[in-house]
């Protein structure tokens, strides 16, 4: 095979059995790789009703067919599993260099089954695979773990691991790779922790082959030029990182503030990308094969919050910033570093603290409950301390570790949790931007901006400007973005490549590298198929149309200030059309006709 390595590595941690098997060419053709292939494997092998933290859940790491090639910004892998936070299908992708290394070691996917009786790590050097004792590494942070494992494997080994948060089953624990990159959402790290798997070290020295190098080079150079000429993909993200969005979202009144009580944060500029570039930024950083370099290598010298690492991204700066009422960039960045070191999703961590702040401010929890941490709006010190407590698993951190839904519910106020399918909503207000709200409600992994990023047309005007306030045409727009993103994710590409290219270019590169001819329609159909397979998985897991909703606040409480003052989400008006256009019945179940069209079975 070209593009694909044609091989899957299977590791059973209960029995210690290691095996390889050929990649099924039909699955590869229909589901591409990464998110698509992972979902296909989960569907074939795992009961959707399984407890996410039981040995019966599986954990799949999969790069895509473009991963390891020089397709621009296509060096990603996806973790697919049943999400610890959500109970839905989780597919969290990550950049860095780890995914390509797994591919160069020879694998399109790594399937982890069962659970080890005691802490272990996996050491993969091409065909040579070992399960090794990790008792002495258990409890260590992500940087400590990476150093310790390199010292006993290979100086150049690429490391994906969990920190103490994953070990302690923090429900939004992340799997970290290359220190600063995260398969962040839905609690992939908690699943890894439940398997007693501390880390996966990889050295790969093999090749990724290409069916038609000449055609591929032409397609790649065309795609690169389009991205480099794009104002966002070319210059914006390299100069200011994703955090360039802070001022943009705040200006349109779509910047969720103090746990979504408002949509505008007056001092947002203090934590925005321009300020970051002028203060903490050391240099931009790129993932494997990336031509964008949105990564932020930063350093905080302020003694109180001193540290160095990467970040913050926009979502992180928003979460620890505006969503908590904090405008101290040093503190926000420190909280980001702590999440990277302990291995936690910054969005869910931050939004859970924001929820706890509202519970505290409204008197639903007391200072006694929080162990003395004054969770007042804007209290930067308390925000950082709450993050640390969650990472180390102490005091009130044990409650925060449950995520905002379970936290708020335990105090009888689940309405204060800003979640969909128990996953925290990210940094774009669904009241101010109608399409993104519909996307949150229908994203298969729970609330996520990276399933159907309609912010591009609704706010940034990419590839065309669409009125953010209207609901006209939004269901079709959301479906288009969700299907495109599913297919793009499955190739191993970064979503930011779409600041310049689309399905035409991706299908072209995919065809040249694999030798399988994909038209743009074929490619989009792969996305539709993946989306529907995820949906089927969720329905079989027990989720229903009732879960396709937003917090009451976003439907009923208008934004109070800023450019989107007075607006609420009109989700109920959009959802029936969305179902219809998806080919789903009134209960959100794919119709037999739709399944037939995608060659799926009921």
């Amino acid at each position, binding site marked *: 095979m070209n593009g694909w390595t044609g091989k899957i590595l299977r590791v059973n941690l209960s029995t210690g059995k290691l095996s390889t098997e050929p990649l099924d060419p039909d699955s590869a053709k229909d589901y591409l790789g990464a998110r698509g292939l992972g979902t296909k494997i989960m569907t074939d092998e795992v009961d959707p009703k399984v407890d996410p933290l039981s040995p019966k859940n599986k954990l799949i790491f999969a790069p895509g067919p473009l991963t390891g090639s*020089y397709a621009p910004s296509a060096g990603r892998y996806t973790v697919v599993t049943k999400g610890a936070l959500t109970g839905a299908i989780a597919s969290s992708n990550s950049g860095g260099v780890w995914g390509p290394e797994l591919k160069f070691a020879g694998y399109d996917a790594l399937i982890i089954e069962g659970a080890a009786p005691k802490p272990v790590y996996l050491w993969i050097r091409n065909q040579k695979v070992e399960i090794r004792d990790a008792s002495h590494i258990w409890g260590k942070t992500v940087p400590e773990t990476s150093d310790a494992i390199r010292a006993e494997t290979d100086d150049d080994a690429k490391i994906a691991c969990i920190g103490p948060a994953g070990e302690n089953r923090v429900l939004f624990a992340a799997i970290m790779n290359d220190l600063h990159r995260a398969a962040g959402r839905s609690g992939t790290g908690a699943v890894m922790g439940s398997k007693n798997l501390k880390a996966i070290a990889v050295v790969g*020295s093999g090749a*990724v082959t*290409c069916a038609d190098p000449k055609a591929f080079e032409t397609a790649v150079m065309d795609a690169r030029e389009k991205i480099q000429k794009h104002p966002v993909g070319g210059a914006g993200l390299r100069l200011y990182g994703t955090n360039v969005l802070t001022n943009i979202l705040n200006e349109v009144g779509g910047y969720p503030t103090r746990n979504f009580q408002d949509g505008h944060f007056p001092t947002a500029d203090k934590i925005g990308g321009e300020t970051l570039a002028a203060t903490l930024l050391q*240099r931009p950083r790129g*993932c494997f094969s990336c031509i964008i*370099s949105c990564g932020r290598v930063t350093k905080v010298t302020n003694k109180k919050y001193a540290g160095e690492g990467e970040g913050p991204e926009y979502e992180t700066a928003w979460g620890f910033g505006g969503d908590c009422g904090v405008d101290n960039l040093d503190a926000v960045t420190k909280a980001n570093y702590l999440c990277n070191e302990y291995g936690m999703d910054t969005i869910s961590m931050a939004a859970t603290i924001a929820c706890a702040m509202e519970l505290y401010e409204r008197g639903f929890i007391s200072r006694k409950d929080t162990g003395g941490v004054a969770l007042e709006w804007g209290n930067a010190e308390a925000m950082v301390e709450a993050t640390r407590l969650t990472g180390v698993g102490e005091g009130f951190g044990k409650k925060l570790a449950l995520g905002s839904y379970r936290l708020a519910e335990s105090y009888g106020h689940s309405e204060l949790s800003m979640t969909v399918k128990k996953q925290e909503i990210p940094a774009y207000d669904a009241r101010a931007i109608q399409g993104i709200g519909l996307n949150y409600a229908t994203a298969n992994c729970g609330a996520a901006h990276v399933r159907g990023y309609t912010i591009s047309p609704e706010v940034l005007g990419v590839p065309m400007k669409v009125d953010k306030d209207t609901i006209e045409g939004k269901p079709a727009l959301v479906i288009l973005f969700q299907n495109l993103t599913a297919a793009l994710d499955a190739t191993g590409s970064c979503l930011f490549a779409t600041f310049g290219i689309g399905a035409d270019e991706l299908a072209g590169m995919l065809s040249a590298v694999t030798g399988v001819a994909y038209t743009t329609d074929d490619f989009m159909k792969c996305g539709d198929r993946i989306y529907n397979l995820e949906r089927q998985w969720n329905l079989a897991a027990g989720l229903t149309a009732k879960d396709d909703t937003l917090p009451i606040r976003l439907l009923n409480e208008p934004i109070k200030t800023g450019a989107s003052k007075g607006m609420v989400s009109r989700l109920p008006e959009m959802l029936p059309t969305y179902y219809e256009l998806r080919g789903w019945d009134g209960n959100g179940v794919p119709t037999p006709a739709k399944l037939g069209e995608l060659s799926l079975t009921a």
Partner: protein
Amino acid sequence: MAHMLMINPEKCTGCHNCELACSMAHEGVFRPDATRVHVYSWEREGFSVPMMCQHCRDAPCITVCTPHALTRDPDTGWVNLDEGKCIGCKMCVQACPFGNSIWDELTHKILKCDNCGGDPACAKMCPTQALEWVDDLTATRRRKRAFTEKFKDAFSE
């Protein structure tokens, strides 16, 4: 005018596109282990440095190459490798002060930058001009300029 590959580590983002371009140009596959250019990264510092044969004027690899597989091209000044003459003794790997003569464990051959014959694939694929193919006068002047700029910035603060 002679050209050289100029390395600007401060511009390198660690994307490895140069390695992919190099292995595709020489080996016809994507294989960062089989490249004549290598990007070495310091993960904690978030810093990366691309490295390849410097085509040294007084090249230790030529001195130790008993079968004379490594020779200097009188026209370009580059150190050239004749794979047909190479016996795989790896003395050049030992001798290179920078680790830029590479023994590939899979193909069992020495890999060394040949400037792609005058049109280096790595520089074309570098998205940030951390690698540039420039004439040697420009390369030298730009280095001086970059260095003196630091003084200028220090004095104008």
